[in-house]
């Protein structure tokens, strides 16, 4: 039944990538100059791919909707990037990073891709340091590491709480260098609104210049979608306001299969919602779980303030339930545990939908250590407190300041209130080992594809994957396709397929403008978000998902009858941009629910209430669901399921345990 072939190279797992690189067809430098590549998105995956391909000699065009490629949402990643360097001598290795990632993904990721990711992880750190990325260092001048969830080694490299920013600015500097040399043409404030397919191959895109509103046609021998995830389908998420699924969804409607759309990562430590006005949620880095302790009162509906609740009346529920990993369990597990406590009536804060993340113990511990370092004997509690806060400020100062700014509370004095929020989407466009979608010549990199994180991504692995795809995978795998394209001359953008694609985009934009209904785009987006959060969020069940599908279909209908978009087509029009994105979210949401309904098991971020162990842990069904669900678009509300069977030849598949 399956039309999909992952094209995994033959041979032993550890040798696949080396052999592939040595045998993949090459394109000679003279031919590279005639081959054009369109890159959509300028985050870690897009910027690194574009710079690397331009360095190789390809002609590259890059598109981003922001005013500068440096704004892409990779910039907001806080905690760090994993790499199997074993600098800490704590037993790390390529295999262990591979193993942790497969296990963390609840045995729903493809072995060959994940092993390749682990293999190139060290090269990423080397590359970034060479670019001048200022990672944190020890006094000896060497790189510092910290711990993240789901691992027992320290393999996370970081730059305070701004790792994503520093890595993106590194990739951006490489990109701008190519722009300066004229090998990359950069199109900012441009949004891709369709992919152009000629004779079954991706041959370019239709993009809208967001300032003039003009539609443009751009040819490419290949098209790379590096457009991030679709967490904003939930309206409230830690994604940037502009993050969207439109590029990926348009590709899906033109034939690219969409894989595992229901796998959503709900991050356990975010600042709770404060009211209906809320437009986005802010993450508090997972690195805070290195030192912070998570707790709720032992008593239900305890009205006391956090600092008035004595130690023996606090329930450190992660340490209690998961002694081996404690506060550093993977994200899906930490999130569900927080929801479980709040649903059972132990939540804190005015909404009672929050738990405490407490630094009091860490402040004392660091204060005592600092007193020793400074040779202060018998320090007073006050001295310990002051010194402890200084150490915490150096490690996490920017995060603490951000918390204070948003909530008006001082986390050095009272525990932070946190609650899970939508953060990342493991699902995305289905890709083979080459990162090519089911449309020849159309690739998906970074969060936009589905490939490496299974049903749950480990912390500090998104940055690793985005840069692995862009720096070290696509420069090789694209040759596999372009080697057979050297005889294809650039196709005129006046050709029939380009004209037709532009007309379809133009018609849809006109249709949106002409609805002239009564409600702003946000009204529909918020409603969609609520349906998704309530029925396809941290916990799902059959009845709820079926309701959600009906509700989304009805909401979609209402949107196309009653949305009101002010302004004009031929001018900067942020409401029109939002409307086009929400129109796609309204279709994607339905597919997410259908995928969640199809998967009669719980795994990673997908928790079906019907399928859980007696202790409330996710209960997988490996016999029937050890596959990637790749959906083919067949028409409105019609999707056909294709299965890519997952074979584990190098890992013993087991019930995941962090106890």
């Amino acid at each position, binding site marked *: 039944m399956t039309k999909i072939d992952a094209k995994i190279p033959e041979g032993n797992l550890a040798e696949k990538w080396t052999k592939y690189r040595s045998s993949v067809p090459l394109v000679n430098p003279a031919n590279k100059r005639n081959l054009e590549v369109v890159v959509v998105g300028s985050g870690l995956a897009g910027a690194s791919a574009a*710079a690397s391909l331009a360095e190789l000699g390809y002609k590259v065009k890059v598109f981003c909707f*922001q*005013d*500068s*490629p*440096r*704004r*892409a*949402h990779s*910039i907001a990643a806080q905690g760090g990037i994993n790499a199997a*360097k074993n600098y800490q001598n704590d037993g790390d290795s390529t295999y262990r990073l591979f193993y942790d990632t497969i296990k963390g993904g609840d045995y729903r990721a493809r072995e060959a891709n994940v092993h390749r990711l682990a293999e190139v992880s060290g*090269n990423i750190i*080397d*590359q*970034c*340091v*060479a*670019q*001048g990325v*200022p*990672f*944190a*260092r*020890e*006094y000896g*001048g*060497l790189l510092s590491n910290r711990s993240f969830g789901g691992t027992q080694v320290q393999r996370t490299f970081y730059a305070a709480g*701004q790792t994503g*920013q*520093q890595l993106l*600015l590194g990739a951006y*500097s*490489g990109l*701008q*260098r190519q*722009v*300066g040399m004229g090998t990359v043409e950069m199109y*900012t404030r441009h949004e891709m609104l369709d992919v152009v397919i000629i004779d079954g191959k991706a041959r370019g895109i239709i993009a809208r210049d967001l300032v003039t509103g003009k539609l443009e046609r751009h040819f490419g021998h290949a098209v790379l979608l590096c457009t991030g995830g679709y967490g904003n389908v939930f309206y409230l998420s830690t994604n*940037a*306001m*502009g993050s969207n699924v439109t590029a990926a969804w348009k590709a899906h409607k033109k034939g690219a299969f969409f894989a595992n759309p229901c796998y959503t990562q709900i991050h356990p430590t975010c600042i709770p919602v*404060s*009211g209906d*006005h809320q*437009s*986005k949620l*802010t993450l508090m880095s997972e690195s805070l779980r290195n030192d912070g302790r998570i707790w709720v009162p032992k008593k239900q509906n305890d009205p006391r303030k956090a600092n008035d609740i004595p130690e023996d009346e606090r329930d450190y529920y992660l340490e209690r339930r998961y002694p081996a990993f404690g506060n550093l369990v993977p994200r899906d597990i930490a999130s569900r545990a927080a929801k479980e406590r709040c649903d059972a009536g132990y939540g804190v804060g005015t909404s009672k939908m929050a738990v405490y993340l407490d630094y009091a113990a860490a402040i004392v511990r660091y204060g005592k250590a600092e007193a020793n370092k400074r040779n202060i004997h018998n320090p007073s509690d006050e001295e310990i407190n002051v010194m402890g806060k200084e150490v915490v400020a150096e490690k996490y100062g920017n995060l603490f300041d951000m918390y204070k*700014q*948003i909530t*008006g509370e001082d986390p050095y004095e009272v525990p932070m209130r946190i609650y899970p929020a939508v953060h990342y989407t493991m699902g995305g466009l289905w890709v083979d080992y080459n990162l090519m979608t089911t449309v020849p010549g159309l690739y998906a990199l970074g969060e936009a594809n589905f490939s490496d994180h299974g049903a749950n991504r480990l912390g500090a692995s998104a940055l690793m994957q985005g840069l692995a795809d862009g720096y*070290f995978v696509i420069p090789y795998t694209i040759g596999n396709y372009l080697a057979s394209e050297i005889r294809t001359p650039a196709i005129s953008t006046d050709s029939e397929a380009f004209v037709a694609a532009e007309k379809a985009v133009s018609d849809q934009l006109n249709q949106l403008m002409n609805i002239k209904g009564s*409600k*702003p785009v*946000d009204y529909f987006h918020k409603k969609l978000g609520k349906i998704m959060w309530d029925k396809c969020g941290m916990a799902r069940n059959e009845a709820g998902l079926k309701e959600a599908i009906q509700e989304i279909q009805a909401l979609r209908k209402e949107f196309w009858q009653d949305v*009101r978009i*002010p*302004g004009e087509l031929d*001018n*900067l029009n942020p*409401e029109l941009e939002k409307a086009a994105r929400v129109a796609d979210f309204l279709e994607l949401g339905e597919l997410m629910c259908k995928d969640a309904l199809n998967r009669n098991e719980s795994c990673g971020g997908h928790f079906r209430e019907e399928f859980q162990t007696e202790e409330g842990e996710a209960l997988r069904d490996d016999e029937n669901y050890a596959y990637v669900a790749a959906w083919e678009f067949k028409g409105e509300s019609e999707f056909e399921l294709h299965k890519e069977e997952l074979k584990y030849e190098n890992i013993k598949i087991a019930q995941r345990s962090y106890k």
Partner: protein
Amino acid sequence: MEGNLNLTLKIWRQKNANEAGKFETYQVSGISEDMSFLEMIDVLNNRLIEEGDDPVAFDHDCREGICGMCSMYINGSPHGPNKGVTTCQLHMRSFSNGETITIEPWRAGAFPVIKDLVVNRSSFDRIIAAGGFVSVNTGNAQDANNIPIPKEDADEAFAAAACIGCGACVAACKNASAMLFTSAKVSQLALLPQGQVERAKRAQAMVAQMDEEGFGACTNTGACEAECPKGISIENIARMNREYFSAVFAAK
């Protein structure tokens, strides 16, 4: 109605780069002090849409103070009254009931207005493209720990690299100078061993591009440092001047 702040907003409205702009006055009520400044503008915009008016265009994306896209000049200060905060992280508890708030775009010749509060900052990208990088192609790198860097140097480079490229420094400067922005990148790379090879060339190329874009000169008023949401130090400007002059004098 979520809160009890009632405010008068005087907002710069400008249809596009070619037409003249002017201030319009709007009343908003029931604003919660937990709202961010941009969420308050969201409330206004959704009302304007429902009333059939054109909403206020403004740049924003991450809304967590790191992407550098938001850019409002609020009551005479870039990013508003609070220190170390971008507009998206400014919260309404910093304002009081009945207050009048004036909101303008960044004003600088090198940042032309696109619409309302949205300006074109692509000149910053061109300054980076002129030399704000280490010329290292993918795949050329040695092992990361082969380059030990004193922690103090790494920390100082990081402090300069924390610039978010928002342009508040330019908006704050009476000369619309981009010295703080440019010097932050020059400093980051001058402080690190990786940046040494191209050090002299970089300082000259970036300064030349900055001048070509039409940014003004620096007269050391310090407004840029005072208004920078990321606390980028004016010492970077002094360092860039040293870098530039030693490069020029050392040149043949």
